[in-house]
Structures are given as C-alpha cells and as structure tokens.
C-alpha cells in the first residue's frame, strides 16, 4: 500500500502527517522547536534545530507507525509558514538564526517604503503588503543595520528552502512561499527587479523559482538510507501554510471564504484573479499561477486569549492552560451578547490587516462599575473576532461572500464559532477533518499524482462537519458595537504611535 507524507514546518512545531491514497490519515506526529526573542521586536529560530527536529519526528513516524503497517512512501510534500528568512554564506552555512514572520525589526524600513511610490509599485507587483513580516523588508534591514552579515550572505532563503536543500542538495522555492516574500512578481512569475533593487540583491542570491507541483529534486542517499525510503520517492516542494489551509478548507466555490484562527489568524478567499487593493490592505499569494489566495492576516488571534488566561485565569493545576481557558469560556458563556457594552481592541502584537500598523496597541473601552471579570473574558473573545470581521469586510468589498468555513484551534471552539456566525451574519461550517494545512497538502500531492483531475476537484472532496447559523437578534447587537470598535481604531490612531513610542522609550 502506498502513502503520502506531509512535512509542515509550522511556526512553533513541525508536523508530519501520513495519508493513504484515499486521503485517510494514517498517523501524525509533531515536534516543537523554540522561538528566541533576544531583543524587543526580534523573533528567531535555529535552522539546524528545526532540521534535526524534522528529521527525528519524520524518522520515528515512519519506523514506528508507517512501516509496521506495510505502507510504502510514494511521495513527500512540504508546507511551511510564510515570510521567514535565513541568510547563508558561500558554503551554504547559516549566518545566525532564521528570522520568523513575527519579527518586527524592520519597522522603520517598512514605514519608509510604504509611504513611497516605490512601495505601492512593489506591493502591486508582489502582492505582499509592505510590512516588517516580509522577507523583502528583512533583507533591507540587514543591508542597513548588519552590513557585515549582509556582505557575507551568499543566498537568502526561507526556512523551507533550507530544509529541502539539506535533504536534497537543491536550493529551490515554490511560488506560494516565494510570493509571500515580497520579492516575487506574481504577474510574470519571476523575481521582481524593483523589489530586488530595494533589498540590494540579485536573483542569483535567491533560490530557484518553481511551481508548487515541482518534483525535480531527489533525496540524498544518506537520507534515503536512514529513512528507509526508495530512491523513487517523489519529493514535491509543495506550498505555504496559508495557501494549503485554503485549499484544505473546501472553499473553491466563489461565494465562500475561510477563517483560520490559531495563535494568529487570517481571512482568505480563492480565485483566478489577483485582486488589486488601492489601500494595500490585502495580500495576493499564489497557490498556482492560475489560483490566487487573497486575504488578510491578523497577528492577534488565540494568542491574545492565551495572554488573558495567563494573566487573569485561575490555574487549579499548575501549567494546565487548557483547563483554565475552558473555565474562562464557561464563565463568558453566562455574559450577554456584547459583554454589557465592554469593547476590546486586541492589538497587543500591533496589527497587520486591515490597518497594517505595528504600533497599534490593545484597549478595553466602555468599562463601567458593573463590569466583572466575566465581561472582560467575553469582551476579549469578541474583540479578537470583531477584528476578524473587519478583515472580512475588507475582502467583501471585492467579493460577495455567502458562507464561511473555519479552522484553527481558537476559531473551532464552539463558543467562538457561534460568535463568528453572529458577527458576520453568515452560516459558518466546521470541517470534518482536523488539520486543513495537512489536508491541503494531501490534496495537492494527490492531484499531482493524478488521483484527482484538478485542484478544484480535489478541493470538492472536503466535507463540512457542522454548520452554525447566525442569530439575527445577536447580529443586530454586534453590528452596533462593531461600529464603535471600528471608529475607536481610527480615533486613537495618533495615540497608538505616541504610546508605542513611550513604551519603547521607558520599558
């Protein structure tokens, strides 16, 4: 029996999935790696640790779970988080750690570029909003602030390219990951000259560009041997977490969109055209040259509720945050819709879509003497979801959306799913299978192998588990509070800059 292995290099962990050719999950496993914050705004990961962790987890899964069941691996496909950047020297040796999407060190470079005509030109060409998250800004930062390292760097690549290069010896990148670097021209599928000039690099300093279906690389013999894989095993370079999650969310239909909320989150749609946005609020990433994933990301998803729980939750058992969260949610369920007029701006991590302001900060508004902890719990959750709604509304200017599918551990909490349905006033469906990134990567691999005639057909095999319908009376309340939420953000825009500046200066 044949099987497909998916390796997903996520933000906090590598996940490895094994699917049979019908799409049944045989087994999965994860391995955590740390993120280091040596300075404020910095967010880095050790590429060697990520590689070794991946190898360890992959090997154990194959030997303990897959081979004993008599499966043969026919294909290995990769997914990973977007926007990471690693510089390597002439021998291919990493110059320090990989920088993650959450790193904000390039705030100044991003602000300057965004305010210029060149910034608009690059945004239009690359589809990536001008923001410190993008590899473009990270390289520009290194050029300006770490010239020694920049001088030694022979190649700049996302972590996924590094992992594939360790395994195969080839330095390659897929359109999905490349289109999220802020360096690829998504209209003509080459590295964008204006972006390269701004970053101060040449195309030779980047990996070779390939479609997500590219399989022209082969595992080194040593890894074939140690993983007990056949020389014929196909290595599919695959796509990004965002594109794969959208493919795995079953929203190919024009009227559908998908919401992912894990620690961070995103609102995404899929289409055959790049959607131009004069306000530069949305991204366009390529699944393939014909299939564009358009949407907006938030930096303030479940991580904010996590923060709230750590600060204000009860911990009957040491370190058991899951139980503490459940208790808080239970408390929030007893609070009226709209949290008695308490409104929360969730921008503890600054914000990306739709305001793209790294200086944005959090705020509880409307507190009165009758508010208790339970109102703050519910307001925190509602605030995170209002923010998702404001991203969704940006997309709705371009596309008529009738229904939503959701995934991610925060969005999938039934209490949150119902609030999403009520705020959006649309039916919201959960997916039958668990991980939509893993599912998306399976569908991509299976399409490449000819099991499905097209990605569209593959996506149609995704089934919905349960649908939450909006309650009109709740939507009416949320709609009124949302207006306050939205106008608050505009009204305190100047104060965001002032307070963030003061925070940097005095803490």
């Amino acid at each position, binding site marked *: 029996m044949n099987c497909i292995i998916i390796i997903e290099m996520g933000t906090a962990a590598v996940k490895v999935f094994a699917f049979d050719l019908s799409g049944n999950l045989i087994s999965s496993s994860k391995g955590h790696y740390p993120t280091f914050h040596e300075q404020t705004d910095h967010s880095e990961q050790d590429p060697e640790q990520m590689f070794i962790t991946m190898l360890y987890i992959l090997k154990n899964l194959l030997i303990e779970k897959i081979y004993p069941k008599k499966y043969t691996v026919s294909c290995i496909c990769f997914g990973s988080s977007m926007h990471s950047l690693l510089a390597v020297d002439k021998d291919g040796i990493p110059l320090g750690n990989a920088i993650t999407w959450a790193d904000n060190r390039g705030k100044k470079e991003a602000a300057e570029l965004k305010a210029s005509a060149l910034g608009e030109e690059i945004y239009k060409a690359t589809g990536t909003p001008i923001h410190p998250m993008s590899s473009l800004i990270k390289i520009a930062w290194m050029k300006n602030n770490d010239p020694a390292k920049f001088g030694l760097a022979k190649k700049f690549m996302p972590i996924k390219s590094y992992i594939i290069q360790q395994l195969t010896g080839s*330095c390659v990148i897929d359109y999905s990951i490349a289109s999220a670097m802020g360096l690829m021209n998504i209209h003509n599928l080459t590295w964008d000259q204006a972006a390269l000039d701004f970053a101060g690099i040449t195309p030779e300093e980047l990996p070779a560009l390939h479609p997500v279906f590219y399989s022209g690389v082969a595992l080194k013999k040593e890894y074939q041997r140690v993983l007990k894989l056949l020389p014929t095993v196909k290595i599919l370079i695959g796509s990004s977490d965002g594109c794969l999650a959208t493919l795995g969310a079953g929203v190919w239909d024009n009227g559908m969109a998908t919401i992912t909320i894990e620690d961070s989150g995103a609102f995404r749609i899929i289409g055959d055209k790049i959607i131009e946005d004069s306000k530069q609020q949305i991204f366009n990433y390529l699944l393939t040259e014909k299939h564009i994933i358009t949407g907006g990301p938030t930096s303030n998803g479940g991580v904010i509720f996590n923060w709230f729980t750590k600060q204000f939750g009860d911990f009957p058992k040491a370190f058991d945050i899951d139980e503490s969260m459940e208790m808080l949610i239970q408390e929030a369920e007893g609070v009226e819709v709209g949290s008695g007029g308490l409104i929360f701006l969730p921008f503890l991590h600054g914000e990306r879509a739709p305001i793209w302001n790294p200086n944005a900060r959090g705020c509880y508004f409307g507190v009165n003497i009758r508010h208790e902890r339970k109102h703050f719990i519910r307001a925190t959750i509602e605030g995170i979801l209002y923010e998702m709604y404001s991203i969704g509304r940006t997309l709705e200017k371009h596309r008529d959306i009738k229904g939503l599918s959701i995934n991610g551990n925060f969005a999938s909490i039934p209490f949150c799913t119902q609030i999403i349905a009520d705020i959006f006033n649309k039916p919201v469906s959960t997916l039958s299978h668990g991980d939509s990134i893993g599912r998306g990567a399976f569908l991509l691999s299976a399409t490449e192998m000819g099991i499905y005639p097209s990605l569209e057909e593959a996506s149609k095999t995704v089934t919905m588990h349960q649908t939450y319908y909006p309650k009109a009376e709740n939507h009416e309340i949320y709609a009124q509070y949302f207006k306050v939420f939205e106008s608050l953000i505009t009204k305190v825009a100047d104060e965001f800059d002032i307070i963030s500046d003061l925070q940097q200066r005095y803490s």
Partner: protein
Amino acid sequence: MNQLILQQGASKELVHFPHILEFAHKKNNTIQLNSFSSNVTDCICLYYILEGKFTWIIDLQEHTLYPGDFAMVLPGQRIGGQSSILNIGALFWIKIATEDSGKLLLGKWSGLTKKEKISVNQILLVNKEQHVLKLKEAHLLLHNLQAELQNEEVGFYTRANQLLDELFILISRQLIRQNNSRRDFPQTFLKLEQTLRQNLAHQWTVEEMATLIGMGTTAFTEKVKNYSGFSPLNYLINIRIAEATKLLKRNEANVTDIALNTGFYSSQHFSTTFKKLTGYTPTEFRKNKTPDQ
C-alpha cells in the same frame, strides 16, 4: 534585644560547625564609615533583614532591602553597602563554607541526598543573578538556628544542620516560584532550554530538569512529551545534535571536542547517535557540508 556575632576560630559556639564561618544577629544603631565595604566573597553569604532599610551593591547592581527581604551571594560574587556603609537597622547573616573549591555549595554537613544536593546546587547556580528574595519564613528559621548554636541542648548538632538544610530548600523553592509563574509552560520550557544550552556538556538527568522548574519527574515528563513531542531526554539529544551540526559545519573544533562539548560521552557515542539520525558519521557530514548547488 540580644546581639550576637559568632566567628569561626574565635567563637566556641562554632567549634562543632567548621562550615559555618560566621553567624550574626546584629542591630546597627550608628552609621560608621567602611562598616560594609565591597568584597568578593569566597563563601555563601545569606542575609535576612529584620528592621530598617539597607542599600547594597551586589555584583554591580544596587538593591534596596526591607524587612522580610533575603539576600544571597555566592562564591565569586561581590557585595558591599552603598558608600561602603551598613545602614541603620537589624539583620541576620550567615556565611557558609563550600567544598570542592566552590563547586559543591552544600558540603558534607548537609543531610540532603546526593541527588537533592545536586539539584539545590543547580538551582542556586542557575539563579545566581537573582540576589534578593522575599523570604519571611527565614526569620523563624534563623531565630531557631541561633538558639541551637547558643544553647547546645541535646541534639543541637543535628538540629542546627537540619535548619541549614531547611533554609537551602526554602531558598531553592522560592527561586523556582519567583521565576516560574506556573501558568506559562512555553515560557518556562524556553528558559529551561536556555539553561540546558548554556551547559550542554553536563550529563543532565530528567530529575534535574524537572527540579529546575519545580515539577515532579512524572508530571514533567508527561508535560514535556505533550508540549514538545519528545521525552525530556530525547529533546535534549535533539538540541545536542543540532548544536553539534552547527559546530561540524563551522569546521573549527575536532570531532571529539565537539562530541564532549555537546554532551556525548565519547566521539564513538556521538558518531553512532549522529549517524543513526542523519545517515552520516560526523566526519562524513563535515566533508559533505557544502550544498550541491
């Protein structure tokens, strides 16, 4: 109130306690020049404030201590009063000799098991930058210790040393509590990982790791497995191989040094473990490090 300053060699009360270099319960009524000048200590110095407000410089950092505060200074660290004076107030202090040229903080006098001694050692050293603790419980303990030393009632030798052990256990637990919120496992685990990385050559045991973050071994192992996907020891091996990979690529140290520095027993042990995971021996890997394109 009874003032007391006992010194090893001068006070008969300390004859049976060669490890206690000094024990003092002092009420300071006047400010005198050079009453507390800055010195690098060669023993463990512990202070507990009873009255007043003391401003001290410990390892270049200024600390203001109030009643209920406890200060710990380890061998090699520097302590002195601001402007070299001892402020007005009352305090206890005790100075304890270490063994094995400062490496073993709790000497033969201690009744802790070998494992517990290693753990306390580890905790104090890892947190050695944290000089000041809130430790009100130390008050009664030091008071009782004073009584044991002065009264020499039956069993005083054992009791006094037990009280010292109790004090060190108290300090260790408080250090762990102050550093770990017991709410944030990812943060606690990251700190643990950094501690492991700082001393990768050490043969860490699961007990030691668990103790560092104040958990029992079983709960710790389960939590780590759940969070990281690895058992604690496998997670450690993972870090070791990743670190060794970096050193191999850098092409500076020889393979045996890399093996020992990253915590493998021998170059053979390193070679076997490395090959089992990567398919290369360390030497082959080093030759092969250049990517093909």
